[in-house]
Structure formats: structure tokens, C-alpha cells
């Protein structure tokens, strides 16, 4: 159960360490629960009142010995739990911002999408977070509107993105290439549930190729069949959406848009879905989505969608 | 029953003579415990936001030590006069009690006038309104809340003076006076922290 990626199928050292603590605490807690359950079921079975039994049981005030036992044993158990907890709390709160070996990523939460900036590479992207295998990544987290929370369950715990503040979080990428889920975990408004992103983990070479592709400016000559779409895009969309990875834009950066697995974080990447999404974003993600209605003809939306589908890397 | 004979029958600490009176005094003390948290939260907010001045003026630019000093002196004195009122009550001297309460009310009004003048200056001359910055919001919330407490206290004590004039000092009215004086002292104690944390620390920077 729980396909894709989740906290109990950890990939990368951070999630593995956290999983270790989860298992340790779960073990101790199951032990406690079992002790209580055994005592409990024994008591409610053994000490039932028989019909007609009107005797008064012995009125026991208490027992210092027993009370000391169930004060001290929990203390010992908690101590066993607290030591690694505190140790890991400190060891996982390290800032690698100045470490040249570590990939730096600035992640910004927006209602309801994610923006990722690679400051060292001069790349902006949205919705797809691309990372190489076996790497440590230092995230700098913030938000442009309300509080969101940045969570890649398989790679490690979450951290809130607070407007006006910066949070630091480092995670280690898995050893194998693959696609992991990313989520917004803090309730952030109407379409909080749909604020997903993908973490695409690539091999070292693929990652380098991706970086190079991203850094290459977009091809300015487009094929004839999508020229009207390009024209419409320039008139209506360019003010917010960049198609080059070099600048952020108000809305999601669309470099490599057609390569993404999903539209708007959750819709399957089909022509129809692209068309439907740009025609009426509010239908999918509510009135708080900043992308305005464009009041175009249906065919014009189709044209823009056609054009967008050509935004591929390479 | 004449007033004097009535007073003779009044127990020595009339505010604690009946269960209702004791309940009222204790309940009010507990309420003050809650008020401590209320002001604590206001203080905490002020401390958290004191540096968020945006383009607005800072505490160093705004605050005047002399006005604060006068306000402090007035409020401290009024606290003393309200203690005298309670002592007069314990001596069953209604006339003195009313006089001291009157002085307390007048001093409270003086404090309010000074505060309103201060706020007016900030808004009119320094461009420091409630919505100027996070600092200004938290400043007005804290100091204004205290000012509202003073205003309420002035109204309350005035109303009680009228009641005493009408009903005399009884086991019903005495707890009210006692409780009002507790309230007044509490306001004074809060002010001690306001002038220290808001004004003096603001002046230090």
C-alpha cells in the first residue's frame, strides 16, 4: 500500500534516519500498549461482578511500590527515546548553504504551485524539481503569499514556507533515478489538496544534460502550425509566464512545459487537459488562482495549447 | 436605622463579612490572574514587533521621557490615594473614603488627558497612526488597552461613589469598593511595566 513514495518507504539518508526514529518509538509504544492491554483485559475478565454478588471488595488506597514502578519505568523508556531524538534534531538541522558540494535550491510556495530556483545555475523552474542521484540538496524555503509546507515524503520530513521569512532544510536524494511525490502539507486555501509537485531524480549524466538544456535559450523559430498560438501566448501570457529558465515570472516558468508529467500539478498531460486548464483555471483550482480568465475564443485556447505542447527541452 | 448606628453594626472588614463578598473579592483576584496573561500576550506582541517600523517613526524618535514621567507620577499617586480610600472604609469614615476615591478619579482623568494628548501628537505630528506599521499597531494595542482599562476604572469608581452616596456603606457595597481598588492597583502595576518596557526600553533603543 501507499505507492509511489512515502515516509515508511524512505529513500535518502534523511528519510532513513527519520524512519529509524519512527520505528524505535513505535517499538517502545507497542511495548507500552501491550502491557496496558494485557493488564486491562485480564482485569475486565477476571473481576466481573457475578449476578447476586453483593460483597464489597477490599478498598485499596494505593501502593507506593507500584506507583514508583510506573513512574520510573516510563521515565527510563522516555530517556531511551529522548536521547536519539535530540541528537537527530540537532544533526539534521545543519545549514549547507555555503557548501560548494551541495546543490542549492530555493523553493517558493505560491497559491497553488511551486517555484524552484537553482541560484548557482541561473535556472528557474516550476512544478518539477529535477535533482541528480546521491546528492545532498540544501533548500531555502519561503512563500509569496500564505504559509505552505514543502514535503517530499520519501526523501524526508517537511518544512513550512513562511511569507517574509526563510527556512533552511537539507535532504539527500535517492540512489536510484525515479519520480517521487512532492506535496504541500500546510493548509493554504481552496486548492491546497492539488498543490502537488514532482521530484524527478536523474542519473548524474541526465541531470547535467537537463541543466544544459535548461540553460539554452528557447528556440525562437516555431513551426507554422503553432504560430498563431505563439502570437496569442505573447499577447496574453508572456507578461507572467517566462519560457526561458533564466527569469522567474509571476506565474510558473514554462520552460520544458510539454515534458512535464502533469498539468497544474495534478492533471494528466494531454492536449485536452492543457486546453481546459488555460481556458478556466478557476474551475480546477478556485477563484484564488491568480491566472486570470482571458476571454478568448475556444479555437484560440486550442491554439495556445498547441503551442504550449511544443515547449519541450532539446 | 440611622447611618451611624448602621455603621456601628458593620463588621471591621465589611468587604469580607459575607460569603458573597469573599467570593467577589477572590473571583476578582482570579480575574486579575487572567488579565496578567492578557497583558503578557500584549507585551509579548509588542516585543516581537517593536522593530518592524517600516517607514514610520521609531520609539526613540517618538517617546518623550518627561510626559511618561508625569503620567507615571500621576498613576502612582492615584494608586496611593485609592489605598487611603480603603483605609477610610475600614475606619468606616465614608466622607474620607469618598474624598480619596474622588481624588483617585481626578488623577485617573489627568492620566487619560495626558495619554490622549500624547496619542494625538503622534497621529497629527509624527504620522504615527494605528495602521502605520506593525510596531505602531502593537504599540497602540498595548498602551491603548491599558488606557481603556483606566477609562473603565474611572467610570466604574465614579459609579460606585454615586452608589455609596445612595446606599451607604454596607456589606454589599463594601466588596465593590474593595474590588475596584484592587483593579486600580493592578492597572498601576501594569503601567510600571509599560513605562519600563515600552517607553524606557524604546528610548534606549
Amino acid at each position, binding site marked *: 500500500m*501507499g505507492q509511489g*513514495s512515502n515516509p515508511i518507504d524512505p529513500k535518502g539518508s534523511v528519510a532513513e534516519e527519520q524512519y529509524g526514529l519512527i520505528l524505535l518509538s513505535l517499538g517502545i509504544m507497542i511495548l*507500552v*500498549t501491550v502491557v496496558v492491554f494485557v493488564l486491562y483485559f485480564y482485569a475486565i475478565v477476571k473481576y466481573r461482578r457475578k449476578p447476586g454478588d453483593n460483597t464489597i471488595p477490599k478498598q485499596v*488506597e494505593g501502593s507506593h511500590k507500584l506507583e514508583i514502578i510506573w513512574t520510573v519505568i*516510563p521515565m527510563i523508556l522516555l530517556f531511551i527515546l529522548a536521547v536519539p531524538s535530540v541528537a537527530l534534531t540537532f544533526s539534521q538541522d545543519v545549514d549547507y548553504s555555503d557548501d560548494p558540494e551541495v546543490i542549492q535550491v530555493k523553493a517558493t510556495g505560491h497559491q497553488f504551485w511551486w517555484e524552484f530556483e537553482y541560484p548557482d545555475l541561473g535556472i528557474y523552474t516550476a512544478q518539477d524539481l529535477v535533482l541528480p542521484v546521491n546528492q545532498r540538496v540544501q533548500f531555502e524555503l519561503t512563500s509569496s503569499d500564505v504559509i505552505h509546507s514543502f514535503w517530499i515524503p520519501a526523501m524526508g520530513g517537511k518544512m513550512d514556507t513562511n511569507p517574509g521569512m526563510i527556512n533552511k532544510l537539507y535532504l539527500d536524494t535517492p540512489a536510484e533515478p525515479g519520480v517521487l511525490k512532492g506535496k504541500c502539507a500546510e493548509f493554504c486555501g*481552496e486548492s491546497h489538496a492539488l498543490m502537488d509537485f514532482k521530484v524527478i531524480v536523474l542519473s548524474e549524466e541526465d541531470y547535467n544534460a537537463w541543466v544544459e538544456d535548461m540553460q539554452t535559450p528557447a528556440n525562437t523559430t516555431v513551426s507554422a502550425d503553432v504560430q498563431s498560438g505563439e502570437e496569442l501566448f505573447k499577447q496574453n501570457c508572456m507578461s507572467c509566464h517566462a519560457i526561458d529558465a533564466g527569469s522567474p515570472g509571476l506565474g510558473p516558468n514554462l520552460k520544458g512545459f510539454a515534458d512535464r508529467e502533469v498539468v497544474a500539478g495534478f492533471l494528466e498531460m494531454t492536449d485536452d487537459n492543457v486546453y481546459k486548464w488555460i481556458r478556466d483555471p478557476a474551475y480546477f483550482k478556485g477563484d484564488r488562482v491568480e491566472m486570470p480568465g482571458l476571454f478568448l475564443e475556444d479555437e484560440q485556447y486550442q491554439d495556445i495549447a498547441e503551442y504550449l505542447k511544443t515547449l519541450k527541452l532539446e | 436605622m440611622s447611618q451611624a448606628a448602621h455603621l456601628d453594626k458593620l463588621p471591621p472588614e465589611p468587604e469580607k463579612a459575607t*460569603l458573597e463578598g469573599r467570593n467577589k473579592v477572590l473571583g476578582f483576584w482570579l480575574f486579575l490572574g487572567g488579565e496578567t496573561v492578557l497583558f503578557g500576550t500584549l507585551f509579548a506582541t509588542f516585543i516581537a514587533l517593536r522593530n518592524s517600523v517600516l517607514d514610520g517613526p521609531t520609539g526613540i524618535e517618538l517617546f518623550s521621557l518627561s510626559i511618561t514621567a508625569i503620567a507615571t507620577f500621576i498613576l502612582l499617586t492615584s494608586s496611593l490615594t485609592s489605598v487611603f480610600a480603603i483605609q477610610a472604609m475600614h475606619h468606616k469614615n465614608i466622607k474620607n473614603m469618598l474624598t480619596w476615591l474622588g481624588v483617585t478619579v481626578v488623577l485617573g482623568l489627568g492620566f487619560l488627558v495626558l495619554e490622549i494628548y500624547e496619542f494625538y501628537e503622534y497621529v497629527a505630528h509624527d504620522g504615527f497612526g494605528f495602521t502605520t*506599521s506593525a510596531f505602531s499597531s502593537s504599540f497602540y*494595542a498595548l498602551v491603548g488597552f491599558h488606557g481603556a482599562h483606566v477609562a473603565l476604572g474611572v467610570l466604574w469608581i465614579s459609579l460606585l461613589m454615586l452608589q455609596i452616596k445612595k446606599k451607604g456603606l454596607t456589606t454589599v457595597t463594601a466588596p465593590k469598593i474593595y474590588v475596584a481598588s484592587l483593579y486600580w492597583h493592578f492597572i498601576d502595576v501594569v503601567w510600571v511595566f509599560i513605562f519600563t518596557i515600552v517607553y524606557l526600553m524604546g528610548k534606549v533603543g
Partner: protein
Amino acid sequence: MAHSVKKYRGLMDWITTVDHKKIGILYFAAGGLFFVIGGIEALLIRLQLMFPKGTFDILDGQTYNEVMTMHGTTMIFLAAMPLVFGLMNAVVPLQIGARDVAFPFLNSLGFWTFFFGGVLLNISWFTGTVPDIGWTAYAPLSGQEFSGTGSDYYAIGLQIAGIGTLVGGINFLVTIINMRAPGMSFMRMPLFTWTSFITSGIILFAFPALAVGLIYISFDRLFDANFFVTATGGNAILWEHIFWIFGHPEVYILVLPAFGAISEILPTFARKRLFGYSSMVFATALIGFLSFMVWAHHMFTVGMGDIANALFGVATMLIAIPTGIKVFNWLFTIWGGKIQFTTAMLYATSFIPTFVMGGVTGVMLAIPPADFQFHDSYFVVAHFHYVIVGGIVLSLLAAAYYWWPKMFGRMLNETLGKWSFWLFFIGFHLTFFIQHFLGLWGMPRRVFTYLPNQGWDTANFVSSIGAFFMAAGVIVILINAIISIKGPKAPADPWDGRTLEWSIASPSPEYNFKQLPLVRGLDAFWLEKMDGKKEMTPAEPLGPIHMPSPSILPFFMSLGLFIAGFGFMYRGYEFESAFMNNLFGYNIIAIFGLAITLVCMFLRSVYDDHGYHIEVEELQKEG
């Protein structure tokens, strides 16, 4: 001295009553009503989440968020709180052998402000602007820029309800400190009274923080202040701190009286005194104290840094120790007893393992690095429902079955009671146990839908089925309550009780005790019964009993606040008619409402309430 006093009948009697027993019933009725509303909201949530996105979407994102917000807010503030207060009103004065509470008038005021606050919140359903910000109302989502009038309903509704709670808390503190019967020392107080005492103390210190926070939200929204507005230098995290400084103690406000009720019911039906009474008292006080030092464990992922996280993590774990003491004391109370499984006892015993399951996940959540994974996932949802439903609701139901005869003078049907228990209990575990796993499989909370094929579909379906079982259980409880109106009359002491409330008639007369009882030890009534006596030894001769007069003022004071609330909420709203715009824009409605409240306060201060006396002859006539 006999003073003629107006006595009201019917509806007016309920609106003007200052009798703590009737106020207890009012709290029960209002809390029950809101509990049903919150329950319907819960069912809507589970219906929506029964299937993944695209299969059976009955709610859109906006509506779901409204339902989810109102479910949380209603259940915590408008259902659990008043039910706890209802029990405290019905039981505490009787348990300490008092004729009344310390402030009958304030008690009534507390109820009416709570009630009008709750009504105000729920009126939002009819104006179409429902709070949609989660019950925690995190800024800046709850600010002007990101949410509508619904957030004003939240801030002002809770503000008004909160005043009522604070007033109620002070009332119980003074009642317990000052009004105990002769011989009823603190260490002879029944545990329900003890927990009510500590809970009232926590209320006193927690609610002012919430009041300030809500004022800030209102100021930000209505008067353009900058407390939580990031763009103008405000700080969104500040709200989280203020909210949780209140919010964490709030959990203990609810759960401690639940512990208290369990500590009364187990000894009664096991016929054995509470094991380790003094350590139970000590543990209660310790939990109350610690509850103020752990709030930031709700904020581990906020980014406060390792020192704060470690500190609050360890402090949170410490709470497990006094809680553990309590659990084992309960176990050893029934150990060696003669357990009789009435409905109340079924609920009470089932509380122990259920609550332990909620408690251990609490310790797991206290580990900061692990919490990074758990936080805001369904694991948390499962945890706090185990604590709040499995801990608080189960014991409130136990308490309701236990004290129902004393409150209403009628017995509840035991067969229906057992049906309700099994439906509710099985439904509860079915709903929430599997949610632990949903959390571990990475499902975030507060999502209005989820995409298929993430491995969550079956678990969500099972969870929703459980919710229907719980609903069925609640329906049986309601039927049972309704038919109990015609049910068998309750004897004074139906359960062979141990504490003072069982020494007087059911329902108790308005003056509670004809003569104040002399208390000779813990479980005062049980001691007398063991000595072969049928009733308590009186501590005073029979005399006239002084009673407070009923008053309509609390009702109007709260009504004034209610009106003022609307005035403030809609002061910046653009109505279609100019008249309405003026009415609200110039704060006329707000001032009118506040004026009603102030005039009522003035009247209360100026006109002394002399009350009335019940004369000896009347007392003797009633037997």
C-alpha cells in the same frame, strides 16, 4: 425577610434561570445540538473522502474547506467545551456539598455568551460566507487579503464564546475554593471536582491569550492593523504562537474533566475506591502546569530551529509520565474490584485502551525529526481523534449515562445504551485506526480530495464506513435521550454511588442540600453507607435557605455582544442599500449592541439582588 420574587415558567424560566443545574442542562442541550451539527459536517467530510477524485465528488474545494473548518471549530469550542461545562455545572456543586455556585448570575452569563457566540458562528452558513481557514486560522490565510467575511465570523464568534468560557472558569474556581461543605478539605474532593478545578485554572490562563490573538485578527481584518500582515512588517508566526499558547492547554481543558469523570465511574462500578488518589491529584496538577510549556510541539516544522524543537520535544514527552500514572491507577482501581458493566462502565472501561492508543502516538509526535514526517499528515488526524473522540467523547458519554439520572431524574435505557456503545466504539476504531496508516503512507490532512492510485483508496473507504457506524451510535443515543423523558423515574442513588451527589434526591432540589452535609473523608457518602447509615450527617440545623433571583440580564448582555459582533463584522461591507451602509459603516449597529450590554451591566451593578428565602416550613413540606 421573606422576599417575594418573580418566578417564571416555560421558556422564560430557562432564559432567566441562575440555577446551576438548569444551566447544566442548557449547556448539555446546546452542546448536544452543536455536536450533532459538527457530526453532520464530519459525515460530509467522510463522504467526500470516501472515494478518490473524480468518482464521487459531493463537495468542491471551497465547500469542503468550510465544512472542515466548521467541523473542527464546532467540535472543540461548541460541542466538547459546553458538554464539559454542562457536566461541571451539574456535578461539581453537588460533589462539594454546596447549595449553589459562587456566581449564579455570571454562570448564566457564561452560558448565554457561549451560546450566542456559537449561534453567530453558525449563522455564517446562511449568509454564505463560512470560515474556510481551518480551526487554527493560520495567518496570513485568515487575513484580509486571503479570506472573506467567514474569517470574521470565526474571530468574533469565538471571541464572544470565549468570554463565556472565561467567566465560567472563574465561577468554578471560586465555587470550589470557597463553597465546600464542612469537612470537605481539598484532599477529600472527588476527582471530578479536582479536575474541574485544574481545568478552570487552565481556562483562566489560556483563554486571555486566545482573546488577544482573536482581537489581533479582527483588528487586521477590520481596522487595517499590521499584526500578522507580512507585507507591512507583521509576523504570521506570531499568530501560531499565540494560538497554540492557548490551543495546547485547550486540549487539557477538555481532557482533564474527562479523566475526572472516568475516575468517578470506575470506582463506582468496580465498588472499589480510586487507586492512588493523591498521586492522581498530583498528576492532574502536573499535567495542568506542563500544558503551558509544550505549545510549540505543534510548530516543529515552522522552522524555529534545533534548540527550540529539542526543548519542546522533551517537555512534551514529560507529559507522558503523569498521564501514565493515571492510566495505571485506573487499571489498578478495577483490579480486584467487582465490575458491573452498565453502559456508563462500558464507555468508561473502553476509554482506557483507546486513550492509551491516542497517548502513545502523542509521544511519537513529540519526537521532532519523526514529527517532520507525521506533521500535517493523517497520522496527526488519527492521533487527535483518538485523544478527543477516544478520550474525551467516550468519557463524556460515560459521564452522561452515569449522571443522567441525577440531572434529569430519569433512567436511560440500558439496552439501547449498550447498542449505542458498540456501534459507536466499533465505528470509532474503524474510522480512525486506519488513518494512522494513511498518514504513514503520506496522505496530508485537510485535503478536499486525493488522486487515485496512491494506495489510499481502500483505507479511505474503510474509514468512511466507520463514520456511518459512529453516526448510527449517536442516533441511538439521541433516541435514548428522547425516550428517557417517559422513562422510569430515577432513585436517589441508582448506582450505589460514593460521592455526595448521590445522597440527595434525583433530580436534586433547587437548593441541593436541605442541610449542608458533614464530610468525614474521601468518598463521603460511601463512608456513611459503610457505617450503615442511609444519608449524610447534617452539619447545621434546618434553616431558611437563601436563593438568588432569576434574571434576564445575562441573556440581554450576550444578545448585545451578538449584535455588536455583526456591527463590527459588516462595518466595511458594501450593502445594496445606502441605509444599511450607513447603519454599519458608521458603527451604529456595533455601538447599539455594546450599549445594550453596558446598560445591562449598569443595571446589574445598581440594583442589588436580594434574592429570596425558602422557609423551613416549605423545606419540611417537601420532605
